């Protein structure tokens, strides 16, 4: 009798794969809008035409009043208000600028200084003609060539920042995303990493501060931005990356601003989310390899056993 098993196996595998293709890749392709990556080029923003001078940038930043709202810890300039009060004043706590030059794209920084709502892609929410002012005041120049001045300020920010490769995933995330998004599984709330408290009273006080901050943020954003602990599992990496690049591409009209991170920083943000939502991925890879080796050996022995037992049956 002809051995039909290979044909039967082919039929089973064929129908299983067709079903898999239809309910997984194909259905998800239909259900979810595909957004192509723009490679964090920020092509809609003009390139810097002037070479910046960091020393002059430092004077400009002090003179323009940036530090009235932003801290620059690395230069010894602390935040004028704590996070809760800052959020009550501006809606969200303005970021520390120590590493802004390393985390954010220079074109984006320059555009942001000149017109925050435009660079952040939130002009639908902050329309000056309707009196809706973005809490960050645009820089209209100090009397000289505004493009030169902005280039100087960006050069200053880059000069004080760590080298891009020294920025950790947590630093990139906390600065670019962490003032709106909590990551509870990394003990991160919008006002910082939750300390370990000895007394319940202190923990409750801290909790109240978090709630106060979140109330301001909710009023500012329209809703509380989601906790991102499991986002690496609930959204795929391509979605997260293209969302960071331009939130409007995915959620037209969202209050979430484009934050202007470099491609490298975006990868670090995603790495931070992997650490939060999929921290055992390295263990999974190594255990997976050993398990596969074990199972293949098991299958070989099972095959040899079958051969031996069936020798007498034919």
């Amino acid at each position, binding site marked *: 009798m002809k051995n039909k098993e290979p044909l039967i196996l082919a039929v089973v595998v064929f129908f299983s794969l067709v079903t898999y293709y239809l*309910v997984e890749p194909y259905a998800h392709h239909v259900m979810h809008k595909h957004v192509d990556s723009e490679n964090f080029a920020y092509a809609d923003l003009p390139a810097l035409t002037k070479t910046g001078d960091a020393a002059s940038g430092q004077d400009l930043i002090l003179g323009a009043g940036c530090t009235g709202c932003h801290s620059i810890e690395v230069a010894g300039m602390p935040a004028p208000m704590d996070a809760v009060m800052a959020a009550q004043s501006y809606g969200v706590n303005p970021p520390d600028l120590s590493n802004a030059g390393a985390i954010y794209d220079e074109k984006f920084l320059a555009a942001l200084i000149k017109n925050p709502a435009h660079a952040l892609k939130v002009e639908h929410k902050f329309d000056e003609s309707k009196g809706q002012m973005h809490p960050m005041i645009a820089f209209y120049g100090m009397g000289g060539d505004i493009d030169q001045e902005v280039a100087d300020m960006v050069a200053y920010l880059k000069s004080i920042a760590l080298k891009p490769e020294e920025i950790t995933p947590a630093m990139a995330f906390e600065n670019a995303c962490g003032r709106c998004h909590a990551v509870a*599984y990394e003990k991160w709330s919008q006002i910082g990493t939750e300390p370990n408290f000895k007394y319940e009273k202190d923990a409750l006080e801290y909790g109240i501060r978090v709630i106060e901050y979140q109330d301001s943020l909710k009023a500012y954003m329209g809703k509380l931005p989601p906790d991102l602990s499991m986002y690496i599992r*609930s959204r795929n990496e391509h979605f997260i990356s293209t969302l960071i690049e331009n939130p409007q591409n995915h959620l037209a009209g969202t209050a979430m601003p484009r934050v202007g991170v470099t491609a490298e920083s975006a990868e670090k943000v995603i790495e931070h989310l992997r650490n939060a939502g999929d921290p055992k991925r390295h263990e999974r890879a190594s255990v997976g390899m050993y398990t596969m080796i074990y199972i293949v050996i098991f*299958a070989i022995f*099972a095959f040899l056993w079958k051969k031996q037992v069936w020798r007498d049956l034919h």
Partner: protein
Amino acid sequence: MAHFTKATSIKDWLNQRLAVDKVEKVMMSEYWIPKNINFLWAMGMVLVITFALLVVSGIFLLMYYVPTVEGAFYSVNYTIMREVDFGWLWRHIHGVAASVVFLIIYIHMFTGIYYGSYKKGREMIWISGMLLFVAFSAEAFSGYMLPWGQMSYWAGMVITNLFAGGSLHADGLVEWIRGDYVPAQAFLGRFFMLHVLLIPLAIIGLIGLHFGALRIPHVNNQDGEEIDFDAESKKYLDGDKAGSKVMRFANDFMSKDMMVVGIYLIFFFYLVFYNYGFAMDPVNFDPADGLKTPAHIYPEWYFLWSYEILRPFSVDLGLILFAFAQVIFVLLPFLDRSPNSVPANRRGMFAIWFWVMLVNMIILTAMGKLPPEDPFSTIGFYSAIVFVGQWLLLPVITMFEKKV
């Protein structure tokens, strides 16, 4: 009372009390299996192994899972996935096995249909198998509630709503099932109980029945041949192992079972470590939120075909056809009027019926997941009609089938 003598060995001691030799013969060495069967006959063992993986991984998960609406999501995604050593492994094994077990069940089912293994004394095997399918479905659904993610919550909402019965508006029944107006603590608590106690007990009992149902009619074979098991087993025991048409379950067929299990486990663990996404829906990694309906709500892939029979019609008709789809497979042995118990390829019209049924159920499965918009809803609508029509036609086409 039986007469007991002083035991000569431990085995003898056990033999006098438990008849272990007899049990071994009945269950293993003199449980006769036809030789002309292929690897599809090993799916039973593959299912046993998968069920064992589900039980063992489930026991580990149960140690850390917290069945409260406040704690469930955290216990699954933080405690088990991050804190517990290898908790992620148990969860991935559990999640993937819960999905793959249905793939094997469907292969097992269609094998039975193709080879006519539900006829001529094998009706109880088929019926107990379909009851197992129902029990596994309930087990899968109740388990899906437990992580208390968005899909748990909304699937729970949608499925319990079905019990309102459309125009009957039996909202009281829905509330009674939920223990609340919406899925909440009472709902989670009772589905937890069902998942870890009542349904597993039912499954274990049904597996016993399913195996028991197999003993008297024996396993079918791939040629639909009627085998004289007494004569053939005597031939085997007399030493003509090669000439006999039957073999021992153990070790003869079990060695092949294990070979198939080995290949299956390569596939299974590949999915566990490298391709688990299909079994763990991304949407369920968002915590349950009763104020935020997901854009697309769909069941796991193995329920999609029956979901698509519900969806394209008006509420009442959809529910009636959905109920029809749930029970109709159980009646297969009685709807098939043909006297032939041979593979479908020798049964004329029935062969066409079989392949159309298989392909149509895959189409229904695909349309059940795709959004309800054209062309998918139209395809789904006609597929559902074809499904129902096929079952109505089955008695007719089998009645006129020629005896082979």
